[in-house]
């Protein structure tokens, strides 16, 4: 779970070209770096994609990971985001057993965690929830006793936290 293990978050801007993800993934495999989670999508600049990577901090020194990544010709920039300097979000979609009495308890959890019900079956619910990785972990572990049928997490995305000009900027 991305929120609990010791890891580094890297935001890697890459050229939006065929095979770039394979280059990044291949590099990690070849050098024995472990990827905790990975999210890739185009950015506001059509020539670039942003890869948000959580790297297992035990598997390799961060500097080595960054320097090796930087050698890939298609990697334009790499930035490490410390948790306290960034806003991280992850999306979870889960189908959970929800027959009889448990349905109401699950609905309470969904409400508390600002989740949404996506699909309703006679004895199951499909719900989504997004938040910081720790919060997503909490939600997942609270649902687990009810019986998770299927679960998919996106891997986290992150952007640097905005400067605190004239007072606290809240996290929403």
């Amino acid at each position: 779970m991305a929120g609990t293990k010791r890891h580094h978050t890297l935001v890697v801007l890459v050229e939006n070209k065929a095979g770039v993800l394979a280059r990044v993934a291949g590099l990690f495999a070849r050098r024995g770096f472990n990827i905790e989670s990975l999210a890739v999508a185009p950015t506001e600049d059509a020539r670039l994609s942003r890869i948000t990577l959580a790297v297992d901090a035990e598997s390799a020194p961060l500097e080595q990971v960054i320097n090796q990544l930087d050698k890939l010709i298609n990697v334009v920039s790499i930035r490490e985001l410390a948790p306290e300097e960034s806003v991280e979000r992850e999306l979870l979609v889960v189908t959970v057993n929800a027959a009889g009495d448990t349905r109401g308890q699950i609905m309470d959890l969904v409400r508390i965690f600002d989740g949404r019900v996506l699909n309703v079956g006679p004895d199951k619910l499909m719900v989504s929830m997004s938040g910081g990785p720790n919060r997503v972990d909490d939600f997942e572990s609270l649902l687990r006793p009810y019986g998770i049928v299927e679960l998919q997490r996106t891997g986290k995305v992150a952007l640097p936290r905005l400067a605190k000009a004239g007072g606290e900027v809240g996290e929403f």
Partner: protein
Amino acid sequence: MKLNGGQALMRSLERQGVEIVFGLPGGAILPAYDPLIDSTIRHVLVRHEQGAGHMAQGYAQATGRPGVAIVTSGPGATNIVTPLCDAYMDSVPLVVITGQVPYAAIGTDAFQECDTTGITMSVTKHNFLVSDAQDLPQVIHDAFHIATSGRPGPVLVDIPKCIVDPRNPRSALEWYEPDGHDLPGYRPRTEPDPAAVATAAELICSAQRPVIYSGGGILKSRAADALLRFAELVRIPVVTTLMNRGGFPDDHPLCLGMPGMHGNYTAVTSMQRADLLITLGARFDDRVTGKVGAFAPEAKVIHMDIDPAELGKVRQADVAIAADCRPGIEALTEAVTALGGAEAQADRRQWHDTIADWQERYPLVYEAGDSGGALKPQFVLEQLRDATPDDTVVCAGVGQHQMWASQYWRFNHPYTWINSGGLGTMGYAVPAAIGAKAGRPDRMVWAVDGDGCFQMTAQELVTANTERIPIKVAILNNAYLGMVRQWQEMFYEERYSEVYLSPDLPDYKGWAEAMGCEAMRIENPAEVRPAIEKANEIDDRSVVIDFRIDTQEKVFPMVPAGASNDDIVLDPSQQPPPR
């Protein structure tokens, strides 16, 4: 001007100053071979694509210019994977052009299709799959830029057949001269950080037992002169790794020669006892460090490398300098000069005395053997060294013969030693020597080869003789995969498993003659020198000498794999040093 992709490819190569390419045509690359007829570029037709790759490497290592190879798709591409990996490990600038099936056929398991860019992704500095003929001039321009700048390396350009086939409308393009590069993620750094240089200069001046640990980066950045000036200014001894033999003259009083698994005692031990390693263009390879935790335990480390990923990869540096060696060493020289230069150096008389004492007590030695006995490989190499010009280019395969050649040759000029260091590719010598001779026709080029290695790539002697690129080959024939045999003798209780090759099968002399070479078989010490002198006289074709050497001979010194460099094993005739 309207061109097709094949014409644009040739024009792009000409524009890069390419004078020679090594290759072998086939279906997918076939249309590109048609405009080659009209090109100024010389093509050397190899007998196996691996030969093309190693020839391009030999050419690049002898000349400093990028080597170029052209092969077809599928098996042509897979056959050149070994040279690509070899060039990647040893930072050799190559541009390899591969044919590919037509764009529309990619992914259909077409005849001679393979995922060339996928297969070579991890053994190239970068690779390209050209999807549009219009991109071709820019891609070739970028490929040469990437291969030759920063830390050099191999770049592969995969070109679908439709792009070079004039009958296909996809091959049409409007020719242009590329101007600059749109590579936003590629910014190799070459100039050193002045603050790091200043710190390094202070460490250098105050060090009591410093050693300059110089690697292949010296040759890549053409920094041999800069290294010489620097070493003479500070009067610090220099070890030259396998990749930097010739980068500092062996005959120079400050030169300690090769360190590492088969390095000489003084080179290995000076690093173990050093209080400062001035690491220039070297990467703490396991064959140099031995057991990393026990390597140079008392040394602070200055590490200069153009590739920031090498800094701290194996050994944490006290001062890390990401820079090209040439400007980096020049800056160090300047900074040390500013601190007082030679006068500012700590008193190191004791260190120099210690080193001189090691050199006297533990030189490279071998048992000479009697005059009627089997040839000693070291004797053959000494004779070869003494009978050839000082600037002879020596190429080696991989194994015992390679280590003996590195140990017993005196390299006094840069770019005179060409071998496969990182990947350890058997069969490297013959094709690399052909490439080197093609690039330096003015030089005598000797391949020092083993019998096992020779059998892997000997067919390229046909290429050498057909193309009139005469090389000379000394096979040190001990009828074994000698280095493996040595390990089995020393570490596997003499249980010899699959290492015997036979001295007579093949008949090397007959085989070489069949390939158009002059050939000799030498078994007596007295015949060695005359045979070499005869070989040196022959210039119109290649020469192969089958030297029958002592099967029992082992390479010493040796640091057993995984052991500390302190546990160096000397020649049995030498007293082990006190610990």
